[in-house]
């Protein structure tokens, strides 16, 4: 197979377990080039396990997996990959510039060192040692090493954890630019917002299984539940009949209502009870939304 035309990652029936605990069950997934694919899921969903398999850090218990058309972890697969791990540090004694120069030297068509440093906004820190950088700067440094070689496959495990809002936007733009230049980007995140802002495709992972594989908008519609809390004189029966309502309960006179369409729910609610007060609306956490989705699918 021609490595430049093969999918960046191809997983067929991949399963993996840690001891007796299954971490991935029968995963089929093809990651194409020129797009950002987000693996979205709560902690323990199997995201990092999948990343480790793609990188050859672990072997699947069953199924087949290729990275850039080659065995994961092989020289051919590594040569075309840039990686940012979730829990990896760099040599504290070397400066930003030295790190970039070293890693850029691993790749045949690396970006110029100065350009890489500018890309992650570390110009002022270029001659500072890694050990003296702040947590966010260290993450940006790690990201710089992942992209410096202009790899065909960019694998980023929770790339924006510990980043402030500005750095996050900078990183998102750089990730987007790599995909637009034709690279396959696989990133893991537990933030729906990040997947929504960045990804062309979201693979929803929970309990080691793929729950959904769709554009971010479609995923959001399925899991973007909201929670309305308020005081109201309406009865439970009438509240559950409001449009969009999934479930409702009350605690100390305060209603807590989960809905798929907060605006529609509230519009009808206010018509029926104009004295509704103490209103709060919040996005349900990904964990809550996924638990609900799993329940619905099991039913």
């Amino acid at each position: 197979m021609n490595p430049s035309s093969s999918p960046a990652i191809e997983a067929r029936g991949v399963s993996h377990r840690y001891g007796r605990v299954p971490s991935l069950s029968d995963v089929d997934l093809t990651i194409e080039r020129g797009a950002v694919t987000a693996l979205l899921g709560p902690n323990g969903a199997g995201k990092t396990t999948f990343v480790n398999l793609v990188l050859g850090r672990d072997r699947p218990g069953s199924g087949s997996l290729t990275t850039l058309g080659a065995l994961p972890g092989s020289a051919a697969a590594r040569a075309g990959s840039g990686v940012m791990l979730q829990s990896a540090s760099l040599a504290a004694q070397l400066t930003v510039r030295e790190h970039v120069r070293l890693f850029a030297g691993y790749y045949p068509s690396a970006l110029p060192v100065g350009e890489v440093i500018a890309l992650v906004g570390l110009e002022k820190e270029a001659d500072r040692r890694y050990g003296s950088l702040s947590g966010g700067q260290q993450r940006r440094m790690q990201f710089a090493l992942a992209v410096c070689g202009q790899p065909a496959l960019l694998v980023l495990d929770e790339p924006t954890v510990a980043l402030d809002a500005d750095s996050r936007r900078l990183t998102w733009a750089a990730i987007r630019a790599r995909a637009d230049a034709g690279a396959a980007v696989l990133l893991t995140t537990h933030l729906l917002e990040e997947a929504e802002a960045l990804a062309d495709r979201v693979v929803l992972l929970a309990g080691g299984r793929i729950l959904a594989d769709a554009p971010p908008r479609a995923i959001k519609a399925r899991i973007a539940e909201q929670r309305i809390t308020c005081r109201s004189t309406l009865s439970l029966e009438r509240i559950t009949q409001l449009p969009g309502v999934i479930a409702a309960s009350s605690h100390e006179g305060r209603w807590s209502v989960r809905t798929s369409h907060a605006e529609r729910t509230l519009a009808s609610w206010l018509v029926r009870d104009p004295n509704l007060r103490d209103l709060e609306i919040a996005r349900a956490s990904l964990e809550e939304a996924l638990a609900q989705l799993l329940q619905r699918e099991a039913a």
Partner: protein
Amino acid sequence: MNSIDILRPSAPPIPRTSPRLGVIRREIHAEIVRSLRTPSFLVPTLAMPLAFYTLFALVLAPPGSQTGVYILATYGVLASLGPCLFGFGAGIASDRDAGILGLKRISPLPAGAFLIARLASAALFTLVVVLALDVLAAGGAGVRLPVQSWFTLLAVHMLSVLPFCLLGLCIGLRTGASAAMALSNLLFIGLAVLGGLWMPLSMFPPVMQKVALALPTYHMSALALQAVGLGIGGSARVHGLCAAAYVLVFGGLAWRAWTANTH
């Protein structure tokens, strides 16, 4: 400008192609820079054999004694044991803990290049201390040897790096950073004392002399002593074979540890 600034590498251009040797050369350079910027490791490891040589060969040795020659041979082995266990072995363990090794292993860097770079760095520091010992011995303690003996001695001291670093690698790949440091300390003292690097084995009870036969430090120091004409028994051939056996055993164990854990 402080001394560290001088060590900052000048900026070589990034090559458009990545020949293996160039990659490994830059990796070695980076590892040496890292070590030089970690004086807490560097100073004790490098200074200890020199300080003890000064004390025992220059200050305390009675005039006309063979002490200066004898401990030149054995301290040179000690000088390679330190960087191999602490710099190389324990260093690998802490790099592994920090995820640095894991990141190198999934990078396009040729497999093992990182280990080779760290090994080269340990060998370089060994060379520096061994040469400094030689200068101290010739200049300070008045040690006179045939030219060939100097070179044989240097070769034995430098070859010691191989079994000792492979031992360090076994520890570094199997234990965490703090355990590796503790174990290295124990091994350093144990291998040095029981292998006869501190004081001649003839001063030990017979049981301990038997124990020494099983230690790599004993065979390396026996080779070094033969090189300076103070052989302690056994042919160079046997000691050499024993040292080679250690290289194979530690190498095999390190290989198993390397392939068992890819993180």
